[in-house]
């Protein structure tokens, strides 16, 4: 009776049926352990899920409306949406001109915004819906610092046309949030989903009616 072998102290069940055909005990052991593993996963899930954003946090991430009529030409305002800083810049024609400087474009890492860091409706030379208004998530794609707004020419280094400079590790972006090559940040600054609800009011967190279902969850990196 092999089943009684475990009566001897120390001879564990795990040792029986080690060689040869799988025994009834092997089957029961594996089935029992498999059920236990499923049970453990079921118990673990509520604990893991409790750390995900709660209903109140998600509700606080609802779209916000911003009135742009108070933003002066050349000025940047920063608003919070989903606990993140959103940069909104009223770009003057002079500032927009820097985005088309061919010499400067050659220094950019992703000048055509090929990496998914913006909705389709902002994948253009100015990375916005209306070129005048830039809307960005103000978080450096390197390690999450907030880049400084440096619109003045030569304010960061000689030849600087205006853009963003991250004080943490020196990453640089132009005035549409496109990252320069040779800096630690790998990607352009993200553009959040937004749309114009009137001529001067934008709603951050909502795509235009024909703008698809872009969300920040799908981008390469925030």
């Amino acid at each position, binding site marked *: 009776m092999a089943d009684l072998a475990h009566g001897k*102290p*120390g001879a*564990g069940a795990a*040792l029986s049926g*080690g060689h040869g055909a799988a025994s009834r005990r092997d089957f029961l052991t594996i089935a029992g352990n498999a059920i236990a593993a499923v049970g453990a996963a079921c118990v673990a899930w509520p604990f893991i*899920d*409790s750390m995900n954003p709660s*209903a*109140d946090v998600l509700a606080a991430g609802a779209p916000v409306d911003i009135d742009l009529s108070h933003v002066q030409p050349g000025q940047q305002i920063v608003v919070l949406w989903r606990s993140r800083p959103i940069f909104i810049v009223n770009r003057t024609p002079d500032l927009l001109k820097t985005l088309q400087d061919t010499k400067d474009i050659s220094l950019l890492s992703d000048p055509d915004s090929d990496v998914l860091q913006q909705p389709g409706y902002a994948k253009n030379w100015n990375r916005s819906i209306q070129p005048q208004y830039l809307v960005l998530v103000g978080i450096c794609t390197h390690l999450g610092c907030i880049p400084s707004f440096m619109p003045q020419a030569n304010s960061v280094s000689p030849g600087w046309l205006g853009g963003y400079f991250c004080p943490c590790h020196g990453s640089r972006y132009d005035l549409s949030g496109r990252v320069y090559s040779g800096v630690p940040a790998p990607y352009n600054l993200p553009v959040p989903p937004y749309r114009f609800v009137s001529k001067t009011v934008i709603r951050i967190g909502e795509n235009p009616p024909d703008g698809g279902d872009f969300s920040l969850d799908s981008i390469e990196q925030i």
Partner: protein
Amino acid sequence: MSGTPSTVRTNNRLVKWIDTRLPIFSFMQDAAMDYPEPRNLNYWWNFGSLAGIMLVIMIVTGIFLAMQYTPHVDHAFNSVERLMRDVNYGWLLRYLHMNGASFFFIVVYIHIFRGYYYGSYKEPRELLWMLGVLILLLMMATAFFGYVLPWGQMSYWGATVITNLFTAIPVIGNPIHTWLLGGFAVDNPTLNRFFSLHYLLPFVIAGVVGLHLIALRQHGSNNPLGIAVKGPQDQIPFHPYYTIKDMFGLGVFLIIYAIFVFELPNALGDPQNYIQANPLQTPSEIVPEWYLLPFYAILRSIPDKLIGVLAMFAAIFILFLLPWLDTSRVRSSYFRPIHKWVFWLLVIDVVALGTVGAHRPEGAYIVVGRIATFYYFLHFIVLLPLIGWFERPLPLPESIAAAVTKKSGVPSASAQPGAAE
């Protein structure tokens, strides 16, 4: 390979490699598989491991709850409501923790009464018992601190009443009271320190549980017969015999626990605690959680503030002296014709105290409370020493093996592992 080769039974070479350098696998094998236990442990011996599992459940759920909780008088109550409504599975974590406290005490009280019935505190296990009483005290403190955190009416007024116990101390009582609260009444500093201590104490309990287990391993488990193990014929390995017995008991226990968590989550709590703390209004009746009621009844039964407080603490501290108050040399009440019945008098007495503690001190409850309080101390201070002297115990069996094989009708010479030398 030089040195001691691994004794772990496995064909897995990685396990062997690790175990030769860091013998964690052979430690687990020795402690949880091969460890010899008396062969006659009954289901009352499940409650030690159940208590350990409850401690783990309380610590794990508590850590996740602390991620959502705000220990501030302006936010604590609302953060608990947010936990119940907005946090994913927050209701589950909280109900597991809330009811877990009750079930932890159920398990531990049964564990204590088991130890009392079978004389598990007697020489040489006195320190094992005393460490257990220390764990009970720490659990009570932890439960009290935890009950304050939701900042409901019972939290606030419970904290007020319990901390006021210290004002009964002559001369230094009032300064101690102020020091404990960090103010002149229960307020934000009190809540902050109670949260800190509520997080700390479970780990202190875990440490004392470690000492409890070291003391247990020194002389092994007691058993229902209360006689010492005389050799391998009296023992069976922990695995698979007691692993499977513990697992089965755990399954039954978890079913009952789950019924409360999912179907009766507030049955053991007080509805007053869903009203936010109001320092200007005392609820019409203040009662502690059920597991503290017997001691609360003793406090209220004595019409003097200082003596009442002393009696309440004495009711717990007297358990430290149990190994010396019980003068009988026979451990198990199975062989003690008088104590066997007196044991049940104590059980009834504690239940009566608990009932009294849950009711307003009026009429019959006052009388019953005083009689039960009197009996509680009479039991330990007078009856227990006397019974030990006068009682004539039944003859003890010669060994565990002899007793269990005779009872089950199996001839002792056949088929019993280790019987034939």
